[in-house]
């Protein structure tokens, strides 16, 4: 029942609290800065996206394959959506990364969770970018007039 009680004032520090080697890079600072800058840009991008899709024309009823095809015919919307994809993914990933850092208590748990996070982020960014760049509206039996 009784626990081992260490001698007081022995200059000991619980190993749990011993900090790892000092990080030389400014990665955490850049990540912090990126969160703030991307956040501001995302507000503009997201509201632009919502207004263009939902408030102009007939709103939600106009959304279809053809609507997206029409938007991506313009390089401005291609760039807009690409920026939205990249910034939202990186902003979100960095946010989840800090949440994992804050809540995971074991080093192994942290490494696994972050591994899964990074793999899925890369997958979605690559897939999304491919779709935007290689999008072809003329699928088989396309009803679109330009095909």
């Amino acid at each position, binding site marked *: 029942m009784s626990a081992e009680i260490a001698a007081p004032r022995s200059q000991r*520090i*619980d190993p749990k609290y011993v900090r790892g080697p000092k*990080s030389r890079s400014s990665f955490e600072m850049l990540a912090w800065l990126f969160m703030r800058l991307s956040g501001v840009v995302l507000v503009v991008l997201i509201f632009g996206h919502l207004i263009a899709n939902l408030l102009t024309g007939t709103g939600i009823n106009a959304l279809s394959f053809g609507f997206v095809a029409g938007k991506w015919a313009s390089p401005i919307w291609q760039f807009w959506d690409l920026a939205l994809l990249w910034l939202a993914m990186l902003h979100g990933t960095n946010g989840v990364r800090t949440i994992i850092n804050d809540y995971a208590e074991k080093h192994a748990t942290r490494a696994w969770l972050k591994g899964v996070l990074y793999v899925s982020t890369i997958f979605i960014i690559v897939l999304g970018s491919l779709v935007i760049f290689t999008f072809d509206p003329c699928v088989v039996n396309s009803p679109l007039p330009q095909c």
Partner: protein
Amino acid sequence: MSTELPEPASKIELKPGVGGGGEIPTFDITLRVRRYTPESTADAYWEDFKLTMYGTDRVLDALHKIKWEHDGSLSFRRSCAHGVCGSDAMRINGRNRLACKSLLKDLDTSKPITVEAIKGLPLEKDLIVDMEPFFQSYREVMPFLINEGHEPSGERYQSAEDHAKFEDTTKCILCAACTSSCPVFWTDGQYFGPAAIVNAHRFIFDSRDDAGDMRLEILNDKEGVWRCRTTFNCSEACPRGIQVTKAIAEVKQAILSRTI
């Protein structure tokens, strides 16, 4: 000649029954203390003490009453008992407070008042935690004046404006109420913690100090200021009213403007 002496001028006519210590209202409270006695039981447990306290009493007085009149085995730290030494920071009703600055009448006495040790540091006994990791982070930010110039023969003068930049952070008493209220510190104890950053801030923004860059470099660590999530627990907990989160933000700004 009258033998009667005149009444002293300071004498005040008191109505019967007014005055004296008995006039301070008393009330009954239940103090629910988180006990941890590793020499006899492995786990911490709650113990209730029913006490009759005066309206002028603080949580510390209630703890004294327990220790002196009910259970001498109760262990807690206190030194000056007047909110200056920073020994008796504890979690009172779930919030980090100094027991010597928390009046019982300000708490809800209809319910048990919970008192437990501050979180995030290794518990040693009852309300006593191992403060060594806390002071280690404090030492790492070099909380002392470093000046490379010639030593002046008199005082090192400073303008009132220069002093105002770090005046707030000079008030720290190292009670650990802020660091042990920080959820990021609770996770793994690796974060430097608000108190270390506050004490770094005190020298970083001191015009007489030359080692600000070194301290900023130390706090640019992955466990440094960037782990702050601005939850404001530290500012809320500080018994000296230091704007801790603001000080951390100022250190962030200083690191940023130094690099960019």
